[in-house]
């Protein structure tokens, strides 16, 4: 079937199998490999992207369901002027170690800050509960999001 999906501002029209998952559309069809796959039960959140502005797990969305929609991936977050505040927060506060969960975590944090520009620690933890990290123990991720909230927010 034919789908047209706008990814990071660029429209892409492709012929795909109906069963193609959005995450594989991004990774294998468009070669946008920043979005990762960490599980197969919609648990880990490594594949989180923004679908029409809302955080979704792209392993649990068919490319067919995203037809006509706008997707933002980690590759679309940094602007000409450098890292987004959330990305910069993760750098400043050591919110990543191996970096595998990071793209999904950053996208989820970006969505969180869009809705709650000044979240409490508990709200950050609650907002990120669909994203697993095995390296950091989460505290420095929380600090990264707090840094971002204080330095430009979701942008």
């Amino acid at each position: 079937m034919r789908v047209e999906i706008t990814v990071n501002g660029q429209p892409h029209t492709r012929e795909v199998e109906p069963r193609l998952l959005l995450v594989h559309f991004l990774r294998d069809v468009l070669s946008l490999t920043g979005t990762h796959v960490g599980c197969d039960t919609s648990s880990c959140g490594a594949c989180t992207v923004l679908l029409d502005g809302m955080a979704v797990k792209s392993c649990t969305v068919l490319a067919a369901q995203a037809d006509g929609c706008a997707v933002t991936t980690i590759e679309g977050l940094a602007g000409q002027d450098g890292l987004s505040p959330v990305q910069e927060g993760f750098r400043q506060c050591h919110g990543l170690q191996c970096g595998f969960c990071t793209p999904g975590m950053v996208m989820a944090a970006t969505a969180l800050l869009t809705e709650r520009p000044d979240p409490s620690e508990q709200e950050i933890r609650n907002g990120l509960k669909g994203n697993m990290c095995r390296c950091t123990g989460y505290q420095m991720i929380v600090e990264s999001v707090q840094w971002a909230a204080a330095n430009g927010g979701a942008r």
Partner: protein
Amino acid sequence: MVGSALPRKEDAALLTGRGTFVDDIHRPGLLHMVYVHSTEAHALITGIDAEAARALPGVLGVWTARDFAGLPPRPSVPGLERGYLAGEKVHYVGEPVAVVVAADRYTAADAARAVRVEYEPLAVMATVADALAPDAVPIYAPLPGNLALEQQVTSEEVAAEVAAGLAAASHRLRARLVNQRCAGAPMEPYGVLADWTGAGPTVWATVQAPHRVRAEIAERFGLARHLVRVVAPDVGGAFGVKSSFMPELFLVPELSRRLCRPVKFVETRSEHMVHTYHGRDQQQDIEVGFDGEGRILALDVTLTVNIGGVPDPVGIGLATLTSYMLGGCYRIPKIAARYRSVVTNTTPTASYRGAGRPEASFLIERVIDLVARELGRDPADVRKANLIQPGEMPYQTSFEGIVYDEADYPAALDLLLDELDYAGLREEQARRLADPRAPLLGVGLSTFVEMGGFGPTPLFEQFGYLGGWESANVRMQPDGSVIVLVGTAPHGQGHQTALSQIAADQLGVPFEAISVLYGDTAVVQEGTGTMGSRGMPVAGNAVRQASAEVADQARRVAAHMLEVDADDLVRTGDGYQVKGMHDATVSLAEVAERAFKPHLLPEGTALGLENTSYFEPKNLSYPSGAHGCVVEIDRDTGQVRILRYVCVDDCGTVINPMTARGQIHGGVAQGIAQALYEKVAFDADGRPLAASLEDYMVPGALDLPPYETHHIETRSSFNPLGAKGLGEAGATAAPQAVVNAVVDALAHLGVRDVEMPCTPERVWKVMHDAS
């Protein structure tokens, strides 16, 4: 730069989706390999029907064990050689039975589903008790009693002394503790991509020791090592489980060779949970003798390790490391230790963060609490009565060759008690106990020591490595910038950053002017890898040594340029100056460029500024510290909530306080996860009960507490940098800090132990049974 909390060099790519993990790599003509895994825990394979799979469009083939019979076995326990796929029988659910290769991953998945394997079930022995029962069926042919190894770690004389010590002690107690099976569960599962072009393969793989992997691949295929290139690109966490020699490391290059196309295998998460090896799974039978003050006089330990369905050469012997560390940070005069490694119908076990040492620390820290409880003394006091004192360092333990480096264990405990406000907590605990509506409060301590800085070579050779050293090549470029090639293969530890800090100090160049490369056997001279908390204590020293040598070379060139003796030079911000002469200067960039101009250098001067150094540690290092946990327990549900988690760590010299904090946090998080959440469980038929992240309880952001971290920095005299390592410290310290807190909260009910993970149901049941 050492000691500065610099943001990491690694982050720019990883934060923008421009990292390169194995599954991100594409090669023209790429094929996809998928396993067919056993669905039975113990069965004979009576037939494999792959016709339907082969008939699917896009499928290149299906291969079974006999198709790889010509390859020498995988790295194995001598005498217990293992192949790549199950042959006549399967030993656990998840054991690979066949491989399918197809043009894309969707077709490959379909084809794997279409392969029909027929089994004739055999009796399943899912537990150590089942496997050791008199009527047990041998799982692995050469092992009639399912006992893969029975090791007397200490001699018969020591056993006799310990028996006498126990008999003479005024107090003694016995305990059985269980350190349950855990999964490493790095967020990136295992992956291998191989492209056999020309004389040999290039293999991109999620591994911790690329040079070792190269050696093993070369040996299997009868190739000289220079023909095999192994690349560990960005690796999404490993925690020890990516140091095992999984069959895909060999099958993927072999299939690439046969098909003349690049082949990729990427594990799914469900597959990871049954296929990649697990860790821990140790039963500990203990007898301890002590006096009225709680001083431990003799300790007798028998460990029983569940090593799973196919013995792994590392997994079979990990309890040796547990045995060596049984004394913890205490002066225990006599310790007897022995262990048994037992085969069962479960996924094999091998290294997981700490690999044998967390089990030891758990054991002795639980024992200290049991002793304290038995005597009605405070666990802090019993610890103080037993701690090795700073003046006794370096401390020769009762195990030959195990010598602890400099540390101040009592100071770490004192700092912890102070930070916790220990006395205040005890008062609060009593107050809550008197109020039936208040959640119960518990405080747990863990004064721990573990091994870091693996080698030295004689020790590491036992695990199949070429050496225990690490190598570094430092090359100054003609513009004064620096490239460092190091033999480690980090996966989140931040070596680009920390090693740049070390090199910057030695070379006097800015942090930004240094690049650190690793993980590619075609680029890096030789290497051992990243495991055993060896990054800073071993690789850090190699980089330091090579950098110092290059700095010396540069100084000699500068001296020539300024026409003075090298001793007459002082370093300035960006170069050299003749002592006392402000206008007699030369920049490092000028020196670096000059080093490549033979006609402008003294006759016989070697060109370039470069050094390769190998650092061989003379001994292990011993990271230590004191961790404390405060929990409250819901009296109605048994749910444990961590109110505070306080760490005091002594990892020797801290290179980067920010990344050091991250390593401690991550280790502690995994330790808490073991204490409260995680267990790889099987039912009586050997079927896995935790084969996904829905069922295996990797905790999330709301399930873990904030951590308070403090440092005591006692430099190790065992290496010039003074570093001890800290990647495994948190995971070593935390489980028993949490369990001691849980038991402490329930002690008034007569509770003496709660098995990990201390789930709400388990805690509730213990409370229910006790009251």
